[in-house]
């Protein structure tokens, strides 16, 4: 009886269809920049038996920026994104997230798709920024492609495959955004908390519409809907006071910071992000 064929340790598909076929192999895992999976041994996690390395799929490297929207392939790196985004108020949160995450060497490797799909990574910078920018995610499955809001994607990303995040689309508009983070050192390590905001203001500088997101505080990034509701109609300058109420947020304890500290600094990060937005409108 012939021995069962062993799965290869790495396959390099050239198309999304080939990648989905490879992801159907037992234990296969999609790998983009590999900066997260290479650290699996340090997290005492088993290495997937087969890596489906996506680097050779040309479509996933797209970076299209127009006045109406931004379309980003899953393999766009933080560094490329930081350099490609224009200095536009609506995209500022994403530009700050891409330029400030981790350190320069990691930013040259780590990708958008990897940042969004690393379910164990609580302190991803791009995820809260994209939540605050009302981004949508395109998922490819053997049945076709589906677009879903970032918020829905983050709750479904642990679902069994095969599926592949192919691109992210960000709408452009008259809102202004900012991203504030607090790492334990000035730069280079994971932030203890992240706040991303996008706000549409009235001529009187009151908040007409706010999208707020937090990262690194809970196990996964998420929208801060309670703050968004409280902020409607309020002056931008009052936002930090409104953020004192952190009810409903279940902060995680970890080596870098206890949960109470993450909650304590949230109003400060909200203030910093709001001040950055206010500077843009001054």
């Amino acid at each position, binding site marked *: 009886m012939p021995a069962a064929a062993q799965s290869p340790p790495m396959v390099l598909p050239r198309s999304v269809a080939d990648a989905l076929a490879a992801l159907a192999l037992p234990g296969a895992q999609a790998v983009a920049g590999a900066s997260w999976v290479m*650290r699996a041994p340090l997290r005492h996690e088993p290495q997937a038996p087969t890596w489906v390395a996506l680097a050779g799929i040309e479509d996933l490297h797209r970076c299209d920026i127009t006045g109406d929207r931004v379309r980003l392939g899953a393999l766009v790196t933080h560094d490329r994104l930081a350099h490609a985004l224009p200095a536009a108020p609506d995209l500022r949160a994403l530009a700050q997230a891409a330029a400030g995450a981790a350190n*320069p060497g990691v930013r040259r490797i780590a990708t958008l798709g990897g940042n969004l799909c690393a379910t164990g990574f609580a302190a991803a910078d791009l995820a809260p920024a994209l939540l605050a920018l009302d981004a949508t995610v395109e998922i490819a499955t053997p049945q076709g492609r589906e677009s879903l809001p970032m918020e829905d994607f983050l709750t479904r990303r642990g679902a069994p495959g095969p599926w592949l995040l192919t691109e992210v689309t960000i709408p452009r508009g008259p809102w202004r955004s900012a991203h504030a983070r607090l790492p334990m050192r000035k730069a280079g390590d994971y932030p203890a908390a992240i706040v991303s905001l996008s706000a549409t203001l009235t001529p009187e500088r009151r908040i007409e519409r706010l999208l707020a997101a937090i990262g690194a505080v809970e196990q996964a990034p998420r929208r801060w809907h309670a703050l968004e509701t409280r902020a409607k109609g309020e002056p931008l300058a009052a936002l930090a006071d409104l953020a004192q109420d952190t009810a409903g947020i279940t902060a995680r304890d970890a080596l870098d910071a206890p949960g109470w500290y993450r909650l304590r600094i949230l109003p400060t990060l909200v203030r910093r992000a709001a001040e950055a937005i206010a500077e843009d409108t001054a």
Partner: protein
Amino acid sequence: MTIDLTVNGQPRRFAGDPRTPLIDLLREDLRLTGAKAVCREGFCGTCTVLVDGQPVPACLRPVGLLAGAEITTVEGLAPQGDLNPVQRAFLDHDVVQCGMCFSGMVVTLTALLHRNTAPTRAEVKAALTGNMCRCTGYERIVDAVLSLAPADPPTEAAR
């Protein structure tokens, strides 16, 4: 699965597990021990090498993603027995203390000076965000790099 790549100008072939970190190929197989495997999570910068001219942590690069890549380690920055300008400046400014970080520092700063011949102090520090010095000798490192600036550097506005 075999991977062909170039290391310090020499063609190399790797036939091991493609998930092997580049740092292990360099140190264990090629005996290029200038890059150090310390944190293995991209934080410390001691394993920094140039991949197609870009400084990246070799601990986070699986060899299987490097087919056709040009790798330059600290050993390849200058001809054998010679020093490149950053290495020379480190020596002249007595920068090296324990020595653990300096190969990564040299690689990162060599790449910085390649794209920006007259960096500001802030730009040097920003470039070094991913390179940690346990001896905390950062200021001397920055001084050494700034000593390499041209006598008449371009102004900020001219960049």
